[in-house]
């Protein structure tokens, strides 16, 4: 059977896409968990948060009933602290470092507590930040994703007037168009953007693509500085025969559809193969299953020890009933009548010692495996927006923009951060880049600034 939509009943879609990490139902349960926190000094959880949220402090503030103060602590380190509480892979960040792990005890549910305070702040629209009077400076931000929004907020706080140019119709970047639907809702993403812009001084121009609707050069000349937070583009091509057959799809596009259409309108195959083992691959696999695919197989050319998703994410895929083929390197897509029918992979093994790239080399064993499939999802990394980057003469490393510690690029007054610099990490990393860049820009805008 070919790709098909409307596979499930409305209630089934609803059930499959409800919040995977539900919030604390009761105030008391939040207090119980908050009180378990030891209030560590130079806390490992804080040191493992890319935005350095003062975790013991915000948790202590929950336990003293100072929820506003708690939200202030979170947001002043990470203005997307609300969204991060829902999407961060915490098991490899703060919660993974919580000292309770060393006692072989459940770590403090940091994200859940963070959600407790931030949700209240956003819902009640607590005014936690006061913008300094406008200083007349104008900065352009390209991309209303986490990096751009964080940069804009930090700049506006200091009195800079910011204009964000966003090619899509909504803000949030991959938070709105990429992250799995069972982690955040569209309403939440919208509320979060509104929350960030509520300090004033930030204008977002939607449906405006820089390089198409307006030139980068015009932008530069009309502003005192520019921040580039354009993220990365579509999923990397595999470069194997049969890749353009019907049924071979791009994970980013597939997920974009899930986030922008009714679930019932998104088509999915009977037998789905997902190539890759990162967070995007997991999201593509689990959401295929939740849209009603009968069988989902994840294919990865390395072994489980080298997967880039976390154990918790892999567990979600396992619980959703996905199966896994490790050490299989895609070789060819087979088809009939222009439609994909199977994926052929080389069986491989890994060299004992790492090669020049620092990873263990992939060595074909000479055998192959053929996996039947009517839908094949590419999710093995994303390609940078090279065209934009080359065109604007930014120095880069295979499309990843080069920056210094303050996120300054080789172009005067041009800063960059987020996925377009790191090649695709997490929301929280993009936020930190946005913060760092804002500091760099403020420094750059000072009259005393010297090259």
């Amino acid at each position, binding site marked *: 059977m070919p790709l098909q939509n409307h596979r499930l009943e409305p209630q089934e879609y609803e059930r499959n896409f409800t919040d995977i990490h539900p919030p604390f139902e009761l105030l008391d349960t939040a*207090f*119980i968990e*908050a*009180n*378990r926190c*030891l*209030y*560590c*000094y*130079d*806390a*490992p*959880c804080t*040191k*493992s948060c890319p935005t350095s949220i003062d975790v013991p402090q915000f948790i202590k503030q929950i*336990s003293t009933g100072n929820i506003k103060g708690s939200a202030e602590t979170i947001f002043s380190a990470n203005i997307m602290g609300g969204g991060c509480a829902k999407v961060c892979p915490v098991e490899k960040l703060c919660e993974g*470092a919580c*000292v*309770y792990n*060393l*006692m072989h005890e459940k770590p403090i549910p940091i994200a859940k507590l963070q959600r407790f305070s931030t949700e209240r702040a956003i819902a009640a629209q607590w005014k936690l930040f006061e913008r300094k009077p406008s200083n007349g400076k104008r900065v352009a931000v390209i991309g209303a994703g986490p990096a751009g929004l964080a940069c804009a907020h930090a700049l506006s706080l200091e009195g800079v007037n910011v204009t964000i140019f966003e090619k899509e119709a909504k803000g949030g970047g991959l938070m709105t168009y990429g992250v799995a639907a069972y982690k955040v809702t569209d309403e939440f993403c919208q509320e979060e953007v509104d929350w960030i812009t509520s300090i004033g001084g930030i204008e977002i121009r939607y449906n405006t693509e820089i390089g198409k609707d307006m030139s980068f050069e015009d932008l530069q000349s009309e502003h005192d500085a520019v921040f580039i937070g354009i993220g990365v583009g579509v999923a990397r091509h595999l470069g194997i025969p049969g890749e353009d057959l019907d049924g071979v799809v791009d994970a980013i596009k597939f997920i974009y559809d899930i986030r922008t259409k009714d679930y019932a309108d998104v088509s999915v195959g009977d037998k789905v193969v997902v190539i890759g083992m990162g967070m995007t691959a997991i999201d593509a696999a689990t959401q295929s299953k939740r849209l009603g695919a009968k069988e989902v197989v994840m294919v990865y050319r390395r072994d489980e020890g080298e997967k880039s998703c976390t154990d918790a994410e892999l567990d979600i895929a396992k619980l959703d009933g996905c199966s896994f083929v490790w050490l299989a390197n895609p070789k060819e897509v087979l088809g009939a009548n222009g439609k994909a029918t199977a994926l052929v992979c080389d069986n491989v093994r890994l060299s004992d010692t790492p090669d020049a790239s620092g990873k263990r080399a992939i060595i074909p064993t000479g055998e192959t495996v053929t996996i039947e499939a009517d839908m094949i999802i590419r999710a093995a990394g994303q390609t940078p927006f090279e065209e934009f980057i080359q065109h604007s003469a930014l120095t880069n490393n295979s499309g990843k923009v080069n920056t210094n510690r303050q996120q300054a690029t080789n172009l005067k007054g041009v800063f960059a951060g987020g996925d377009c610099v790191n090649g695709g990490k997490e929301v929280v990393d993009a936020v930190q880049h946005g913060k760092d860049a804002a500091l760099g820009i403020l420094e750059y805008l000072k009259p005393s600034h010297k090259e």
Partner: protein
Amino acid sequence: MANLDSTFLGISSPNPFWLASAPPTDKKINVLRAFEAGWGGVVWKTLGDQVKNVSSRYAAVDYGGQRMMGLNNIELISDRPLDINLREIREVMKEFPDRAMVISLMACTDRTSWHDLVKRVQDNGCHGLELNFGCPHGMTERGMGAAVGQDPEIAKMVVEWVMEVAEVPVLTKLTPNVHSVVPTAKGALEGGTNGFALINTIQSLMSVDLDTFIPYPNVGGHTTFGGYCGPAVKPIALKMLTSLGLDPATANTPISGIGGVTTWRDAVEFMLLGAGNVQVCTAVMKYGFRIINDLCSGMSHWMDEKGFVSTSEFVGLSIPKVTDWEDLDLNFHIVANINEDKCIHCGLCYIACEDASHQSISLAPGQPYNTYAIKEEECVGCNLCKLVCPVTDCITMVEQRKGEEYLNWTEFQRRGLPLNEH
């Protein structure tokens, strides 16, 4: 398992756990259930002239997510008719003849009132009397309760009146709302008391509602000072108990220990510091009578481990371990030691020592875990780090004497030994 039979002032009970005079002992239906649950005895809720109580009556201090670290009340003595109390006491004694039945009393400060009350109650039947010289609220304004306990002369006089007619053992329940319990205890002893009970509740104002600004407990917009009890008061009770054990005048008089007893460990501590038995109130007000099971089981197992066969064997064993500061050995010196294998790198020891003690712990930065080590030459052996460390036995204190011989402060000064340089 060790037998917990107890004899206190000649009153026997199947274990040394009595319920203190308070709401759990104020009527037959409660006390019957307490005895069914296994309590060794009760001190019946204080009887006297019938009173009227207010609403609300209690407030609590919560701590670290736990409810009721301390409890406060503004209740008075029994608000039920004396006749009914006496009839119920008779009925309970009939059903549970093996349990201790002590009646708490409080009368107006005149001889006739005390004589009448004592006679009426003991004629009705009981194993002992407890004189409530402790209630810190409501009754003091009427010249009763703590007003008696705070004046050694009045205390002596009232005990004398009681002893003129008493035919059963008499306990005097002391108030902690004094600079020292010893003078009142001596007064009561001179008056002829057979034993002491301590402590009653401590005067307190619990907390304030941050929205209405009305302190708790709120009685129609106002509060009044109340009596504090529960786990928070235990160290204060232990100190008062021990000071009676250390004073030669009071050292040999039996004491029923009260104040924050919640677990069998608390009870053992009270007894090691000289209590012949213990009384419990708040713990039962929080959890109910069922806690008697672990009180008995825990004490009994502990006795087996230590080789004690009777509860009287360990009473007072810790008193000789308490001395004056001047007699402490200045050559005794300990230093902290961190067990690297147990350490969870929370940094609590470090920041405590750094900000509040002797800057004796070093920090080697790590991502994400720092490593902490004791600078032995700086460590003064204060215990703070060990007290804050969340992992049991992770920090231990290791003895490193400064000198062979015992050296107290007087001797230290006499020899003109040097003080700290920095």
